[in-house]
Every structure is written in C-alpha cells, then in structure tokens.
C-alpha cells in the first residue's frame, strides 16, 4: 500500500502542518496562562523547555473546556423555558451554567459527575414538605 510505504516518509512530509501550527502558536495567546499549564504539567511529570508545546497543551485544554461549555449551553437552551406571565420576559432568558447541564455535557466526554440534589444537614432534608413534621 502506498500509504504503508509512505508512512515512513509521510511522517516527515505531513509534519509541516504541525510545525507551522506550532510556529503560529507564538502569535496566539491562549486564555490559560503558560505558567499555570506548566505548573500542572510539571506536577504530573511532564517537563519540557519548549514554550510552544506548553501553548499547544493550553490551546487543547481551552478547546476542551469550550466544547464542554458549548454543549452545556446547548443543553441549557434546549430545556423548555419556564412558564412566564409577562410576555416581555420570555425572550430575555438568563442562561446559567448549572450542574445539571454540565453533568450532561461531561457525560459525553466520559466524565461522570453526579451532583447530589440536596445537602443533608438536618434529618428532615429532602422530605416532602407536606409530610414533614414540625
């Protein structure tokens, strides 16, 4: 197969995409600062003197977070709007990043986040208010 024969050479030929990208990374400033990324990478054992690699990781993480956030935003928008009495209020819906939307979005990325529904700080928490003894 040409693909197989070229694999040894293709690695050198198709790399320019990556190298060009790495070169262009110096112009792009990722939102996550370099020091922070370098700190966490060093914490897990990855050491590299090259700044471009740090930026590559930063951009990849930024992309990941943005993807998760956009999925959560879509979940949030997809939820039916609550019943409003004023028609003027209906279009101005304030979108809030909630744990529900976030857990749904993260599930597609393989991260299971289960948020407890209530904080049990008293024995009567979570009980139906009608049956709660007071």
């Amino acid at each position, binding site marked *: 197969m040409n693909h197989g024969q070229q694999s040894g050479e293709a690695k050198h030929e198709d790399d320019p995409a*990556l190298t060009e990208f790495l070169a262009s990374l110096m112009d792009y400033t990722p939102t996550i600062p370099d020091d922070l990324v370098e700190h966490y990478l060093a914490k897990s054992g990855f050491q590299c003197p090259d700044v471009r690699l740090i930026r590559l990781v930063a951009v990849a993480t930024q992309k990941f977070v943005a993807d998760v956030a956009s999925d959560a935003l879509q979940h949030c928008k997809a939820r039916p709007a609550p019943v409003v009495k004023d028609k003027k209020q209906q279009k101005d819906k304030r979108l809030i990043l909630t744990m529900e939307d976030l857990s749904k979005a993260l599930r597609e990325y393989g991260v299971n986040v289960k948020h407890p529904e209530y904080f049990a700080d008293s024995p009567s928490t979570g009980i139906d208010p009608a049956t709660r003894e007071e």
Partner: protein
Amino acid sequence: MVLHVMLGELVSLNMSNGVGEGGRSQSRESHGKRELFQGNDFAYVLARMAVAQICENVEVNVSQKGVRFSAFQESALDTLTGVAVQYIQSIGKSAQFYANVAGRVEGNSLDIVQALTDLGSGSGVSDVECCLGDSGIVKDVIRYTGEAEEVPFVYALPRFPINKEKRGAPSFSEVGAEPPYEHIPVWLPAFPETNVGTIEGNGPSLPSIQHSFNGGGLEVLKSPKSARNSTQGEEEMEGNPFLAAPLRFVENEVSPVVRLLELSNEVVGISHVSDKHTSNNNSHIPVLEASTPCDDINNKNKLSESEDGKKKGGARPQQTLLCFKIGTLKRPSCLAIKGSVQGRRWFQEGEVKREKKSETEENGERFDLANLGPDVVI
C-alpha cells in the same frame, strides 16, 4: 507574604469579575470549605478564573444571534475547573509516558498529540499508519484557533511557583571564625552558637537558629520559642502542641518502689484472701503499681491533685486500698466482678456452691472491687 496577598486580591477580584449573581451568595459560605480541600490554592484560583473566562466567551449561534452564558453556578464552575485541571494533568502524564517509552526524558510535540488522541479528544479516528501530524486532533485544534476569539488571561501573572532562595549556613571562612578542631576545613558551615547560660532570653539571632540544625540539645529548645515570638501572625504555632517547647532535662521526682512486704501486709488486711494467693503476685504488683489506677479511685482515696499527671514524690500510703491480682486463682476470675450473673451459668453446678461461699467472704470488701470497672481482671 507576597503570595498570600496576591491570593487574597485575586480571590476578591474573582468574586466580582466573572461570577454571576447566583454564585455570589454562595461564594462567602463555600469559600472556607474550598480552601480546605484544594491543595494548591493559588494555581486553582487561577485555573478557575481562566475557565470562567473561556466559558464567558463560548457562544452558540442560534438564528444569527449569539447566545452566551450570563452566570455560573459556583459548584458547576468548580467542577469544570477540576475537570480542566485533571485534563491537563492527564495530558502531561500520558505524554511523559510516551516519551519514556521512546527512550526520551523530555516530551515531544508528537508525544502530546499522541496523548491527546488517547484521551479521545480528536474527532477523527486514529489510524496506526496515519501520520500523527495529520490526526484529527491537530486539525481540530488548528480549526479552533482559527475560529475562536483570542482572549488573553485577565491578570498579569508573576512567575510562579515562587522559589525562595534558601540561604545556606555560612561557612567558617565567611563568618570569620576559626574551626575549633584541626580536622575541620574552613569551607564547611560554621558551628551554631551555643549559649548555655541564656535559655530564656533571645540569645543568638533568629536566622542562625533557623538555619542551623541541631548542633546541641538546647537549640531545639530555643527555636520553637523564638520562632513563636517572631512570627506572631502564625496563630497555629501557638496552639500546636507538637511545636511546643520540649520538657526540660531536669530530674523528675518519681515515686520510689514500694516494698513488697508493706504491700502484701495491706493486701492481707483488706481482702481476706489467703496468703498463698498473694505470694503468686510478687512479680505483678510492682508493674501494676507503676501504672496509675483510674481517676475515680484517686479521688476516692483523696489524694492531693497531681499537676500535669506527673508522678508525685514520696510514697502513696493511701493507695494500698487497691488490690490488683493477676494470678492463678482457682476460681474463675470473671466471677469476682459483682453483678456478673451470666458468668455463673457458664460453670458447673458443683463449683457454684464454692463460688458462693467465697463471694460471701468478700462481700464486705465488694464495694472496692466493683468500683474498679469492668476492665479490671481480678
């Protein structure tokens, strides 16, 4: 410390910057909780702000009108930050792993791309024969940088983690002192100063104490105290028992060994047990004497208060009321405890009569033994 000041500023700025109204009310109460379980606070706060910035700029185009997040739930933001931090760390771990497998110490761009592919971030299918530079993840990232708006981080960061330069102990030549012995070269660190006379006073300067290891026993005694005096802001040092000054090396009064003859006489007088039992316990009584009896017995004997639990000097004549016996008694030991009705059932009927007889003998003194508590074996 500069780091803490910056942290305080950043946290307060964070609260007012990207977090919406829903999060603000929760922020004050959960702030304390968050500080407890997040190990690296400064880095975590920075990561949180960066993630908040990213989320702020996420836009979903719905019918040509960009819709964005206007607020965050605080716990959601924390969760997302935790996930992002774990993401970075797993990239680092996998990339380092690939570099090590290839026999390298430092990571490569291809290692990172491989790590990203392993995490499943790329949309394309990873092919074995396909070049890594061609993989889906690289294309995705390139596309992302082209599309997304460039938002730099809000604050200018100092270089962190801040490394304090550790000043080593000055050598003999630097101090200008002569080494006391011939075999010690001049370039070695100088000995710390030992002031035997001034224990209470400040004595030598604080840095010399801090930087010198234990050159003498007294240095250990001084350093927590002087450190405590100097850093008054650190409240935890004052209350920390492990950092308290150790006990002085002074001769403590210890109760002398009670002679066995005295004790055995008292024992015979009180418990009405035959002598042969006491003779078995010669080896045990001193051991039990050393272990202080429980507090209610002390109170009952009306001993004077012993401060700090130290042993009092002199004999304790009032304590002979006690009789601990661990020995080879013919009857089972659990029967001696009053009220152990269940114990009686365990034994044959022939022994029960004998036990009752011996119990009546000791009824007069029963109150002493019963008050010892269930964990005393008699």
